[in-house]
């Protein structure tokens, strides 16, 4: 009897072993769990902190003791370039001279990088680390993963502080403390409309820079060439809690808070008065806009099956549509120009950013590319000094970003030129070969050939952005919602959006007024009020904290 029980237990154990053995390693759930663990279980190196505090005198800009050599590990994302060691040797030669320190670049590779990033921080084996909002910078910083930099920036790296500027550093604050140093290259990822300039000129149509002109442009093409497809919009770019259907992104021409900008749950706040939150889904404007959408759908701007279609990212490239309104950015426009040139059919692509019409435009958030010092670092002050050298020292910055001049790259007319690529070889150290997007210095960054057009666009946006209330500050992307207390309501709201908002925005309903009423009722049932209340509270607190008033 005893034996039977034992063998039953053992066989269960074996089955369990097989199941966990197979599933445990790479599945998503394990990764999630790890992330949660990684965030919570970061051991705080108390002793380390105390000693640095004790050593740091209160005085301004002190001289660091550089007599001891420090070997630092710099953890970055992506794959290593082939000439990693060669460039590292050149870099360390300079760093030894200036900071008596060396840097060993370590790469996450793109496999399981999120999990490995969490491991790296938990293990505290790196000293300097790449940070970004898509790598949960805010969460990690508030759980104590990084060293506080406020004081050290003054004492150790005043040049760095001056270069980056208070506005940028302010955006990297978490709970009032600075934990990261952002790059200083303002990058605009502003959404807009990509359209066919050649067709617009051919049929003498208006530039689609407003809802009316976009409609006129599309109608004009439809009249002149009925067989031409107009928009290939789907629900795929609208998976968040802002819009349900991609065509609704065009409403950005009318309001400055649609789609990627602005707030969730059908809430709205003007860029000039961010803490003044008001309602959109229950307003008359919403009904009017949905009627516009219905008119567009009836005109046949998009397919009747748009709601179930999958996104064809090559549609524009192959001439299947004449404009794209969702998920676009200047970089994609540059790609489209190159694609059309390659196709050689005389097609031309042009771009109108929504911000050019609605007046609100800003670069990417500072936490999009930054560097932090991992808590438990061997020598945080030296690490910061090295970081300062890598960003502010032109010579060192050039080695990190472009490799060795004459071997890997050269500069002609102020433009970066990869020597191996020109010779038809695979580059052993490509542009930004260490993937150090966090070490871009806006003042000295060498443009690549394709960057010239991009930079022209950026300059235009920078002028516009300077005129806004918060000049060239992205006030939205620093906010992260904590929905623990209403996650059930949140997912119910998300479902109602997919089911009722998407067909409304796609104009695929018979009676707009009735459909709007139904959508509003369903939203109430799903618990929209609770979501809105909590979300607004968090948003206003965020605006207060960062002084966006």
């Amino acid at each position: 009897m005893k034996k039977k029980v034992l063998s039953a237990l053992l066989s269960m154990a074996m089955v369990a072993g097989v199941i966990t053995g197979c599933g445990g390693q790479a599945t998503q759930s394990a990764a999630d769990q790890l992330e949660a663990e990684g965030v919570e279980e970061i051991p705080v190196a108390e002793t380390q902190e105390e000693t640095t505090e004790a050593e740091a005198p209160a005085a301004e800009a002190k001289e660091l003791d550089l007599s001891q050599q420090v070997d630092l590990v710099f953890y970055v994302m992506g794959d290593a370039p082939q000439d990693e060691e060669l460039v590292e040797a050149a870099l360390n030669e300079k760093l030894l001279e200036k900071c008596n320190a060396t840097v060993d670049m370590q790469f996450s590779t793109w496999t399981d990088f999120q999990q490995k990033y969490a491991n790296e921080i938990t293990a505290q084996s790196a000293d300097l680390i790449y940070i970004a909002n898509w790598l949960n910078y805010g969460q990690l910083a508030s759980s104590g993963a990084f060293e506080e930099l406020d004081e050290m920036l003054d004492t150790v790296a005043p040049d760095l502080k001056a270069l980056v500027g208070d506005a940028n550093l302010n955006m990297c604050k978490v709970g009032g403390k600075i934990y990261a140093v952002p790059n200083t290259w303002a990058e605009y990822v502003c959404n807009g409309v990509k359209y066919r300039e050649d067709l617009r000129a051919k049929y003498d149509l208006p530039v689609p820079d407003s809802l009316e002109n976009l409609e006129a442009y599309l109608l004009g093409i439809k009249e002149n060439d009925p067989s031409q497809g107009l928009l290939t919009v789907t629900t795929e770019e609208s998976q968040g809690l802002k819009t349900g259907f991609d065509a609704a992104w065009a409403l950005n021409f009318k309001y400055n808070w649609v789609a990627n900008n602005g707030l969730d749950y059908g809430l709205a706040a003007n860029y000039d008065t961010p803490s003044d939150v008001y309602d959109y889904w229950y307003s008359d404007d919403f009904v009017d806009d949905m009627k516009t959408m219905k008119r567009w759908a009836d005109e046949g701007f998009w397919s009747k099956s748009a709601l179930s279609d999958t996104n064809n990212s090559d549609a524009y490239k192959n001439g299947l549509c004449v404009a794209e309104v969702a998920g676009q950015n200047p970089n994609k426009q540059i790609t489209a120009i190159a694609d059309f040139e390659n196709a050689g059919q005389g097609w031309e692509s042009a771009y109108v950013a929504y911000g050019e019409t609605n007046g609100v435009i800003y670069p990417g958030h500072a936490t999009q590319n930054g560097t932090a010092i991992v808590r438990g670092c061997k020598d945080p002050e030296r690490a910061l000094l090295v970081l300062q050298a890598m960003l502010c020292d032109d010579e060192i910055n050039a080695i990190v970003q472009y490799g060795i001049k004459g071997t890997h790259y050269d500069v002609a007319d102020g433009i970066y030129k990869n020597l191996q690529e020109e010779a038809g070889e695979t580059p052993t150290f490509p542009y930004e070969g260490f993937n150090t997007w966090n070490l871009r210095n806006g003042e000295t960054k060498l443009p690549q050939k394709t960057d010239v057009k991009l930079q022209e666009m950026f300059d235009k946006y920078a002028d516009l952005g300077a005129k806004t209330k918060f000049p060239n500050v992205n006030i939205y992307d620093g906010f992260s919602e904590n929905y623990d207390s209403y996650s059930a309501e949140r997912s119910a709201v998300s479902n109602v959006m997919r089911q009722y908002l998407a067909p409304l925005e796609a104009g695929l309903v018979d009676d707009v007024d009735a459909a709007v009423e139904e959508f509003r009722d369903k939203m109430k049932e799903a618990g929209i009020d609770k979501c809105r209340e909590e979300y607004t509270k968090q948003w206003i607190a965020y605006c207060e904290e960062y002084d966006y008033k």
Partner: protein
Amino acid sequence: MARDLDYEPSAPKTIKKSTGTKVFEAIAYTLLILGSIICVLPFIIIVSGSFTDNATILTQGYSLLPRDFTLSAYQTIFKSPKDILQAYKMTLYYTVVGTGLGLMMITLTGYVISRKEFKYRNTVSFLIYFTSIFGGGMIPWYLMYANVLGLKGSTLAIWFPALMSPFLVILMRTFIVGAVPDAITESAKIDGAGHFTIFFRIVLPVLKPGLATVGLFLALGYWNDWYRSSMFSTNSSTWQLQFYLYDLLNATTAMKQMASNVSMKTADLPTESVKLAMAVVATGPVLLFYPFVQRFFVSGITVGAVKG
């Protein structure tokens, strides 16, 4: 020696098969043929796809024979043969070292916990089984190797963690218990053999099927693993083959995804046919290896130490 005593199942040819047997064989053969077709078909499609022009795959779909025969996918993969050959070399090294050492350790452990005279065998067995149910989790596992043992970046970290697994130890113990009856070891003991003699001269020779099975499991595990490279490698020259290929795919998808938010150059995505060619390159050697090990499975059934 054992061969002479073998009875082939179909040996008595003079005896006529009954109708029942014939029906049974007909059904069995049909099912087995269907089964093997189901197993082989996808692989044929993969191989044929890897030799097909990518545009043809996209427009006309997959076929059993390549429609537009081309070697371009393989040319893409072997464009920089140095990297892929290095990855092959490392995988071979990990597989050979890992399987060899692992097999030795598993067999020795299996022998010890199968001995009745070992008083604490149940406790030890339990401790081994226990780890298959309760593990420390990802983070402690990682910290153990990276921080405590300091193996990050070394090749040891790639083959060492997988040397033994509870499942294989149990399997080996069962094999030993089944293949070596107590009577044999007892008689050897009476003749004055110690544990080493018993293990090497009595147990090991009859354990071939067990060694083949466990060895194959180990070797396949090492050959197919990419995870430990991903976790512990700091230099691409220590990468396993599977990780090299897997990362090639991941890098391009990640780049493409990120390009919508960040200014960066996007590499060309590997095409369908390149992905298929990768699958062929990675699984090819295992396919060749299998038939050679397989005969041990078959012969193992009829080989035994106690006859008649």
